[in-house]
């Protein structure tokens, strides 16, 4: 089946892509670039890096900008999916939704309207197992932003390895996959990449328990 993956460049959409590519043809990625950093719907840190990730994956990418206004942003998403349907003849859309009924039901509605399949291959999965699968698959994932206690600047830009996973598990206040927006991630490598993304220039902006890694140059 020809599929499009809703792609944020973070760990969940990357694992959804990995699961989709088995027995299917992922013909494009769709990235929504939201101007609203607090969007409930779309991931925002380092969204510009998706272009470079798509190059390393050798999969075409459709990037759609949105102001990120609640519900109106869905029209922009629908437009991007319609474009993918017209250009690449996709038969279905894949998301990296794990727990969010808010996100998944909105994508389901759009797919229903456009007569497309909607797949959520990480849906309700055990959080620790997901991270473990990514580590086992040799994903290189960095924490690109934090948004809650007890995270602080020392976490930003760090790679999620087994040791970090153990540390995340020990924090009672958070979902270890960052499902509640406690942190966001960016993937620099998976076995589907032609080569690893190298960050050439970056800076950290952080205040108390909220901050992000700004990637200024990467290749």
């Amino acid at each position, binding site marked *: *089946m020809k599929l499009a993956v809703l792609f944020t460049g973070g760990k969940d959409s990357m694992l959804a892509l990995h*699961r*989709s590519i*088995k*027995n*299917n043809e992922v013909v494009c990625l769709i990235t929504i670039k939201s101007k609203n950093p607090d969007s409930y719907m779309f991931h925002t840190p380092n969204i510009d890096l998706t272009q470079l990730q798509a190059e390393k994956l050798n999969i075409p990418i459709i990037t759609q900008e949105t102001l990120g206004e609640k519900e109106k942003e869905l029209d922009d998403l629908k437009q991007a999916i319609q474009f993918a349907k017209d250009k690449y003849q996709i038969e*279905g859309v*894949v998301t990296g939704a794990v727990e969010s*009924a808010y996100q998944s*039901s*909105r994508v*389901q*509605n759009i*797919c*229903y309207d456009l*007569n*497309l*399949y*909607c*797949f*959520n*291959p*990480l*849906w*309700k*999965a*055990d959080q620790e197992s997901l991270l473990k699968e990514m580590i086992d698959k040799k994903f290189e994932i960095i924490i690109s932003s934090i948004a809650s206690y007890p995270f602080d600047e020392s976490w930003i830009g760090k790679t999620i390895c087994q040791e970090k996973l153990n540390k995340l598990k020990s924090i009672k206040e958070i979902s270890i996959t960052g499902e509640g927006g406690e942190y966001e991630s960016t993937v620099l490598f998976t076995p589907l990449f032609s080569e690893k993304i190298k960050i050439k220039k970056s800076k950290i902006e952080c205040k108390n328990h909220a901050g992000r890694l700004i990637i200024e140059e990467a290749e």
Partner: protein
Amino acid sequence: MKQKVLIINLNKHDLAYHEFITPIISIIKEADVVHYKESYNPNNYDKIILGGTPLKDNEFLENIKLFNWIDDFKKPVLGICAGAEVIALRLKCRLTTNKSIGLKKIKTINNNPLFKGEFEAYCLHSLSVELRNEKGYTELAENTEAFMFNNLYGIMFHPEVRNIYIVKKFINL
């Protein structure tokens, strides 16, 4: 006593397995899984669950004959969404178009062993069951979000998403 549970996968596409079958396995912990087109013996199990499918996958509706074992089966069967549609068709009920996607309020209208009162549940269906009440089928929740007939339970919402206690209660029936 340990229950022997069979989960029947109604999906046409492998990719949907993660979404509609894995969450049920996570709740039950131990169960056999079979695709509905494979051969299996329902009599080898204490409980049977028919899982859901994506909105666009209705291939199973063209293969209702493969579920004729339901007609004489005496042990508990739970149909979730697509699975409920299978049970409804085996009971000679009709399906009508009725899209429902997202978190919805479910109102219990008849006492039953699986749930009570009002609660929120995740819906993902484009069809609804039209019960033939003269047959003695019981509507368990408003808008036929759930129904039962003897040992057969049909639930149109997805209890494996926000109401896992329903699946656990079914296993312990």
